[in-house]
């Protein structure tokens, strides 16, 4: 894991991002219809359509539009949203923080709960605990987010028994408790599925470590069980867990799209779907870029952490 390697990875990320923007731009251009048509809807007389395209700058040649956009981005200007009468930076910026809170809450909750659960399952192999945790993780991985979310809504947000709000958002600056209440179900949905992945992974890694020679050696040396687990077994099973968590960031970025749509959480996912429906190209571009950057960076960071946790990789 040298500096040169890091630079090479970063370079690859930049190239990928460039390709992504060209692809998104190109394909959007080829599609029938555009933002002007979506704004006017069924009031689009040919005359109005032409005027609206001119107003939005959609009448310029494709390469000019792309060039202008890239030039702006390189200067830190993501342009105006075609639909929302707001600068893209503002639309996406607000959405990003809302999503980030949700994702972090889910990740943090999961890390705190799933890793001990997995360890427990591995330590009590074959017990009821193991079975329950195993079953839970199997069911969890087989439920798409929208199913989990819908079931949670029926259970906790029905009009007859509204324990939780059925969706929506309150700014944390206005009402922090309200913010948390609104975040519980969406973060919980994401968390349940992540938990299933991670606890399973920790369990299998830890079982492997527990039956490995050095743990047996440690036990033979007379070290007590708890010390063995905390000092030797768990740290050694963490590297794979981190790897899974980083993979799950990718999952999370996808899952958040669905969850935000269901719970009306004004984050990146919901904004992206709105932008896709309205053909709001600058917003689509900005969000796709942002998600790809987050994903690539999280992979990179995970690789670094794994190398740091696992000496074998460090020297490889």
């Amino acid at each position, binding site marked *: 894991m040298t500096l040169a390697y890091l630079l090479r990875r970063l370079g690859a990320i930049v190239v990928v991002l460039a390709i992504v923007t060209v692809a998104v731009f190109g394909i959007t251009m080829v*599609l*029938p*219809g555009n933002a*002007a*048509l*979506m*704004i*006017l*809807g*069924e*009031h*689009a*007389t040919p*005359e*109005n*359509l*032409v*005027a*609206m395209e*001119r*107003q939005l700058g959609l009448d310029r040649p494709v390469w000019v539009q792309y060039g202008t956009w890239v030039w702006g981005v390189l200067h830190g200007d993501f342009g105006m949203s075609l*639909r*929302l*009468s*707001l600068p893209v930076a503002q*639309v996406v910026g*607000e959405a990003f923080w809302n999503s980030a809170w949700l994702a972090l809450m889910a990740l943090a909750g999961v890390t705190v709960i799933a890793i001990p659960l997995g360890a427990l399952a591995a330590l009590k192999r074959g017990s009821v605990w193991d079975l329950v945790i195993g079953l839970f993780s199997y069911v969890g991985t087989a439920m798409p987010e929208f199913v989990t979310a819908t079931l949670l*809504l029926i259970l906790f*947000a029905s*009009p007859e028994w*509204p324990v939780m*709000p*059925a*969706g*929506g958002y309150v700014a944390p600056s206005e009402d922090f408790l309200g913010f948390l209440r609104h975040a519980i179900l969406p973060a919980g949905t994401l968390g349940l599925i992540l938990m299933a992945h991670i606890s399973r992974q920790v369990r299998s890694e830890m079982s492997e470590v527990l039956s490995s020679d050095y743990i047996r050696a440690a036990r033979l040396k007379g070290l007590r069980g708890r010390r063995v687990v905390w000092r030797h077994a768990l740290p050694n099973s963490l590297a794979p867990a981190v790897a899974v968590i980083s993979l799950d960031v990718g999952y999370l970025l996808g899952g958040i799209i669905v969850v935000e749509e269901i*719970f*009306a959480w*004004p984050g990146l996912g*919901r904004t992206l779907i*709105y932008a896709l*429906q309205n*053909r709001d190209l600058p917003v689509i571009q900005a969000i796709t870029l942002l998600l790809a950057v987050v994903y690539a960076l999280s992979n990179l960071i995970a690789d670094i952490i794994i190398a740091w946790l696992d000496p074998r990789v460090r020297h490889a």
Partner: protein
Amino acid sequence: MTDLTLKRRHVLMGMGAIGTLATFGLPQGAMAQTPKAGGTLRISHSTRIATLNVLSLSGPAEYPCIDMIYSGLTRIGLDSKVHPDLAKSWDASADAKEFTFHLREGVKFHDGTPFTAEDVVATYTAILNPDIPSSARSVLTMVEKIEAVDPLTVKFTLKTPFADLPVSTAHANARILSKAALAGPLTDLDTKANGTGPFKLDVYDSARMVRLVKNPDYYQPGKPYLDAVEMMLFPDLAAETANFLSGATDVMLTVQQAEFARIAAQPGIEAKRVASGRYVCIVMRQDQKPWDDVRVRRALALATDRELLVDVILEGLGRPAADSIVPPELAFATDKPAIPYDPEAAKKLLAEAGYPDGLKATLVASDRPAIRAQTAIALKQSAAAGGFDLTIETMPHDTYLANVWMKGAFYIGYWGMQPTIDATYRLLLTSDASYQDTEWKNAEFDALIEEGRATVDEAKRAEIYAKAQAMEAEDVPYIVPFFEDVLTASSTKTASWEVAPISRYFYVEDVWLDKA
């Protein structure tokens, strides 16, 4: 006979409605209580206010905003008739080719500049400018010239006679902008607003809230009663409903059919059902087989179970329609006999038309709003008994707009109510209609509509429009299965909240909050 059926229908509707059915005259604000001033009205809505650009906006939550911020020369009332707004009166020449509007004195824009005839001229020049996207242009195409006679008088000269011009000037997108705003960059209209309406723009945030505050200089003395109005965006219906029921908001702009009964049953809530001329129509392109044959169209009409559609799709909150795009609320609307559901007769007609074994067709529906696909699905079921084997193709709205709308042979349209019979027909059915998508072009019909425009005498116009509607009924250019009610709800503390049947006029200056 005519009267009887009409009455019976209204009685039936009254029974079906929970809460109140809007009275079509004056707002109920003429209650015994005197209005109290002050307070902030919180209106919830679930579609974004993506722009405040009066000239081109079309969002359901955008209309109330501009209705509060701007005024037009004229305005449509809750009775679906024209009322004075910035023009306190107008006169028309006998040939209906020259209209003179007399403007109100002493009206000021929100920034303090006085409102004059120059602003009216600038606004209408912009609306008619083909380089500027504007929704009102299609109802004003006959205007040749607009002049400021003096600072308080504007004269419209028309190319062709048009008796309904004052209705066109009431178009929701034809509100008066200031001359200065139109001289600046037009994109500013998206987020800034300088009108003459009862409320001024305070905060515009398309992601969360639009806040409007009282305009103390509004031309109606003593109004508006409210200090401020907040349009709060709830992107989720469940959250919107929960907040409304808990009292966090005062008005729910639009109530979904599926939720209406539950909301109406809550204490402290007044749910309103306003009979409206909003409709779904089935577009059949008549320059193509098989829809060129009127027998096929009539067969489909007979194979449409309107009662079922109203029950299943609208949860009963609407009225079966008789394949006319003219709703009963409009002036000169004739009473139309209900079309029975008669699949056997439909089969027979199909056989006559040369399809003894039934007819296969692909019906396209956009995925937005959901009512289109729902209508398609229900129609497929209903028409199957009449020998129609329909395949439903649902597609994303952008693909639909680009590839099917105005081009397809058989698809689902969805339109809002228009203020006049002339506007209704000119939108879709005359040969030069703005959105002529059936190719049902009929010179006789066109001539009738033209004659109606030029006729000032009411009785004569009634006769002309009756003829036009008879032609429509005869030829079935569209299947119109039902008219959808406009559904809204307010807390009982909110007095005088009304939505006009053309859900683009709201009269928020009359609303007041009865909070002790």
